[in-house]
């Protein structure tokens, strides 16, 4: 059923407009640009709008649209919803605000009415007070932020669920800038009907989504168990990263109870996230870092990490960062030491982290990595390539991209610096080697990959 939201064959836009700055204009334009199905603008003030026949009301539509998008003032929404129900539409996105979020009796009443009508006709609803759906594959795009303000990312495989519309649009814009492909993004606002659990279910079987990112403020009452259950099913199939923000209001508790007093929302969510096998990101940076790693890297077999660097200092920082994330950095075994000594100048350090020093060149890295990557005591490699070193010319990037596929082990990179670093990073990232600007971020992202690898083994 939820599928109709993402793959409708026809859509009605109630409140379509051609007035600059109007939400109804941006949404209509979005559909005109990308959507291949039928588009029915509805607005009593137009006969024709952007070259399309405009209908005075829902009743006049030649067929029940698969999906309806409502962008009219809140007080008129129940009436239109009633008409849509009578017509037979089953999926409705209500963009309009002015409901429960206003904390007014009128807003609450309107929301109750919406619920009632939806239940009466069996309509599924996303919203109200949301920005709805951005679907890169079907062209459904109700994000009312014009493209010149919010770039759309390329077609890809990241799916989003976001309570916050602002967060959803910010992250979409960020992904567009970083050329990370998105499958579908949903911002559900007041969550009068369709919620996180429904969407996780949808993404579980969505072939276009390989990783799910989720921004959550709070679940609906009594949905916790179902959420954990569905998430556990989902993570068997694909990784999901969650960022938990804000607090929810819950019914008053027996304040006399010790446990009740300590059961702050977040501590319960934290446990639930752990129980569900979702990967928790603790900051915006982490969400993106983790996404980059999940999208490009194979899973890890164990927790042993090797570091190859041309900068001793960064090697030490990485050692601290990796070990404090719980990674093991194995000592180099005698036979490998011997082998490395025979191919490296005597001033290089063959212990882990392996330091190729500032006079290194691409070839030196390649020779060493070729010997390290196949070893069974290596589950992932972090390559530090400080671009300021004169011998680094670009061959290394090509090699790393190939080696990742050849050995099926995660390879990530740390590049610190300005313009040169940015150049190397772009090349590496376009080839599927994620690059991090700090050892700590690299270590945390790798930890997420390791955590999911272990969850996947378990479930």
């Amino acid at each position, binding site marked *: 059923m939820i599928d109709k939201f993402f793959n409708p064959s026809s859509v009605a836009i109630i409140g379509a407009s051609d007035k600059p700055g109007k939400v109804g204009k941006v949404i209509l334009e979005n559909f005109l640009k990308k959507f291949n199905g039928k588009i029915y603008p509805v607005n009593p003030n137009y006969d024709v709008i952007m070259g399309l026949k405009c209908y005075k009301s829902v009743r006049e539509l030649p067929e029940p649209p698969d999906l309806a998008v409502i962008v009219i003032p809140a007080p008129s929404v129940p009436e239109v919803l009633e008409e849509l129900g009578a017509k037979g539409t089953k999926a409705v996105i209500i963009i309009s605000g002015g409901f429960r979020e206003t904390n007014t009796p009128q807003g609450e009443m309107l929301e109750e009415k919406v619920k009632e009508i939806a239940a009466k006709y069996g309509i599924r609803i996303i919203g109200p007070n949301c920005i709805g759906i951005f679907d890169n594959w079907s062209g459904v795009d109700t994000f009312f932020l014009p493209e010149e303000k919010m770039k759309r990312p390329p077609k890809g495989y990241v799916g989003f669920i976001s309570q916050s519309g602002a967060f959803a649009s910010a992250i979409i814009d960020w992904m567009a800038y970083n050329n990370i492909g998105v499958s579908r993004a949903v911002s559900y606002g007041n969550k009068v009907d369709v919620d996180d659990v429904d969407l996780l279910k949808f993404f579980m079987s969505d072939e276009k989504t390989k990783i799910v990112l989720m921004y959550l403020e709070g679940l609906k*009452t009594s949905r916790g168990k179902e959420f954990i259950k569905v998430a556990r099913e989902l993570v068997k199939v694909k990784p999901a990263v969650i960022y938990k923000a804000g607090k929810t209001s819950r019914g008053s508790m*027996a304040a006399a*109870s010790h446990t009740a007093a*300590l059961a702050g929302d977040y501590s319960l969510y934290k446990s639930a996230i752990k129980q569900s096998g979702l990967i928790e990101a603790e900051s915006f940076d982490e969400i993106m870092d983790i996404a980059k790693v999940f999208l490009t890297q194979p899973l890890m077999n164990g927790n042993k990490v090797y570091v190859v660097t041309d900068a001793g200092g960064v090697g030490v920082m990485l050692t601290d960062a990796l070990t404090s994330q719980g990674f093991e950095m194995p000592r180099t075994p005698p036979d490998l030491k011997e082998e490395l000594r025979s191919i490296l100048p005597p001033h290089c350090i063959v212990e882990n982290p392996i330091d190729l020093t500032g006079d290194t060149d691409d070839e030196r890295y390649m020779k060493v990595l070729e010997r390290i990557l196949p070893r069974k005591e290596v589950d992932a490699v972090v390559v530090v390539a400080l671009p300021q070193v004169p011998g680094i010319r670009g061959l290394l990037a090509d090699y790393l991209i190939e080696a990742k596929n050849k050995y099926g082990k995660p390879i990530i990179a740390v590049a610190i610096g300005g313009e040169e670093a940015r150049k190397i990073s772009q090349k590496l990232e376009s080839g599927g080697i994620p690059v991090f600007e700090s050892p700590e971020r690299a270590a945390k992202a790798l930890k997420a990959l390791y955590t999911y690898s272990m969850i996947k083994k378990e479930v």
Partner: protein
Amino acid sequence: MIPREIIKNALNEGRTKLLEHEAFQVIKYYGINSPDVVVVRNGEEAKSLADKIGYPVALKIVSPDISHKSDVGGVKLNLKSPEEVGRAVDEMLKTVKTKAPNARLVGVLMYRMAPQGLEVIVGGVRDGIFGPVVMFGLGGIFVEVLKDVSFRVSPIRMEDALEMLREIKSYKVLEGYRGQPPVNKDAIAEIIVKTSKLLEENPEIESIDLNPVMAYPDSAMAVDARIILKKP
């Protein structure tokens, strides 16, 4: 009485907090290790039961109207003979009647004091979103000040409960320190699992605190139980 009847009784009487002996009966029904308790109405009755309970004996006033028992003289500990116990019960009833003249008195709870062990807390609460959740933490400052606790959403399996133990920052304390032997982690985990089951099966229970649970090298025992019911 089985838990359902105890809970029904309490709600019929308009109480949302179970009396001590009722709470002990409920946790016992679920196999949570706890001291045998009896409620006596006078010193004579107490005296006749003291030997059976074993020493040292602890006494606590049982009343739906008194929440701070020691403030009204409603707690006596470390009583070591039948005479001492009998006298203490009569005294307690007298003192409490003077200090809290309007309180309904059910009797005096009597049980054998548990030897000192490592004090931990197991608690459960019914959350609006997640339903029954169970908490674990070490007693005292670890919970009060550091809020070093872990939670799980029910149902909780033995391995989840053991993970809850490992999750707290002060976990090492469970493994023994300053010559203290390690405590029995399985025994604590079992109490967690049983608390989870208790909450699942009794939707009227809003929260439960087993505080403290004495943890020993070979076992663990809930020496105080507090059960709060939902307002109907």
